[in-house]
């Protein structure tokens, strides 16, 4: 088994004008998905990220504060899961609830260094 990270990229919920009803439905889907992974014993962790961004760029360490409205897509959160390979994680990612909002799941393998 290897450890992978699923990174969720997309528009911020606040910028999509979702209704309370839709938010509740989405919350339910996320919850069910999290539970499914938990019950399968593959979930290693994860977090949701707030939409505030502070960026430090370049040699001059130029600092800028960016709001989600200024960028089309931001990283909204991630999950770490244990799986055999990319295909297995791809299968897990089928349940990601926000594809219909134009959301993206990026799968990355956690690098393991020789001891």
């Amino acid at each position, binding site marked *: 088994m290897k450890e992978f990270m699923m990174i969720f990229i997309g528009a911020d919920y606040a910028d999509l004008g979702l209704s309370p*009803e839709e*938010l509740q439905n989405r919350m339910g889907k996320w919850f069910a998905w999290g539970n499914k992974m938990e019950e399968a014993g593959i979930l290693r962790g994860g977090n*949701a990220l707030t939409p505030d961004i502070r960026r430090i760029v370049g040699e001059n360490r130029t600092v800028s504060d960016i709001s989600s409205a200024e960028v089309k897509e931001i990283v909204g959160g991630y999950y770490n899961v244990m799986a055999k390979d990319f295909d297995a994680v791809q299968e897990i990612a089928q349940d990601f609830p926000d594809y219909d909002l134009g959301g993206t799941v990026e799968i990355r393998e956690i690098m393991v260094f020789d001891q």
Partner: protein
Amino acid sequence: MKDKYIDHLFRHHSGKMVSVLTRIFGLSNLDIIEDAVQDTFIKASISWRREQPKHPEAWLTKAAKNRVIDIFRKLKTEQKLLPQIQQGTDFIAINEFFLDTEIEDAQLRMIFTACHPELNPTDRITFALKTVSGFSIKEISSALLTKEGTIKKRLSRARKTIQNSKLKFHIPQGKALPNRLESVMEVLYLIFNEGFHSNNQEELIRQDLCGEAMRLCQLLLKNKNTRTSASYALYALMCFHSARLSTKINTNNELLDLKHQDRTQWHFPLIELGNMMMNKAVEHSEFSCYHYEAAIASEHLRANRFEDTNWDKILLWYQSLYALQPMAIHVLTMAVVCMQQQNYKAAKTYLDQILPNDFAQRAYLYYAALSDYYSNTKQTKKAIIQIDNAINKVSNNLEKEYLLKKKKVLLQILQ
């Protein structure tokens, strides 16, 4: 563990929070309030992904209280008018606003605001669905089969009217109450009908609208000032109609009339609840149009088979309804009832009293009834001309298909 939350928890709570916060900060701060509430639900939807609180409603109420402080800060930095609340003890008083009875009171105030006669009638429904019921613009647009742009326009017009006319956020009292209450009931009735007679093919949307209208009507019944025999009758009417909501359309998504609905599928508990409400409604001898409409709906439910329908009684109720509310649609319905009784002469007398123009976009109803009259009196050619008129005027696909089917039958008779 499964997602254990009751349906529409967020939606309903959103209406509650917006209402309570408006009571504290006033209608002039509605924009800020709505944004703050929306933000709460976004946060809840994300933080509840992994672990859901044991008492979600308490969590949401607490979040709403926290919003009070946020909004205070925001108003202060924007140097906007602050409500007359000092520090300390007044904040304790704010807690009182979050008691269940006070939340209901705030919601009623919001309903009365949404249904204020100053507002344009179409704006009332839209504004009520947005503010009291927590629908998004997209949801309202699909529920009312109206473009999102139009909904947005209606909302901003309603907001402007509320600000410009400086509407009070209150439940009217004394002499003003009856008229205002009537306006509220009319809006709830329209929201319900949007669901019940909707052209919407999605049953969920229709159920949502009917359910919302019923929930708001219940709020009227909970308050002793707004609990009247008419509001009981309105609720009874909603129960009776809802009892057969799911049988109006078959599995092929075809519209079924009363004759073809599966009566065994009618929802008995709702009929019983309707009967109970009706008993309350007739405790006083003054009857509203809702009384008669409920009586008619219940008469239909009483018949085990379509053939058993007591048309005499239904006609009588329609006559009383017409006396109270002289509308062309009631005349048309009385003509249809007479046809059920095979009293074609009486039907024609009613039909002669009305014109297609009386029905505006629903003129197809008139033509369809006229076609029925001709087909019943064996004047098939005339019947076909009228059904064609009806088909040309109808906009809803379900109803169009229903009429086309009727035409097919007529054409077969001619052959």
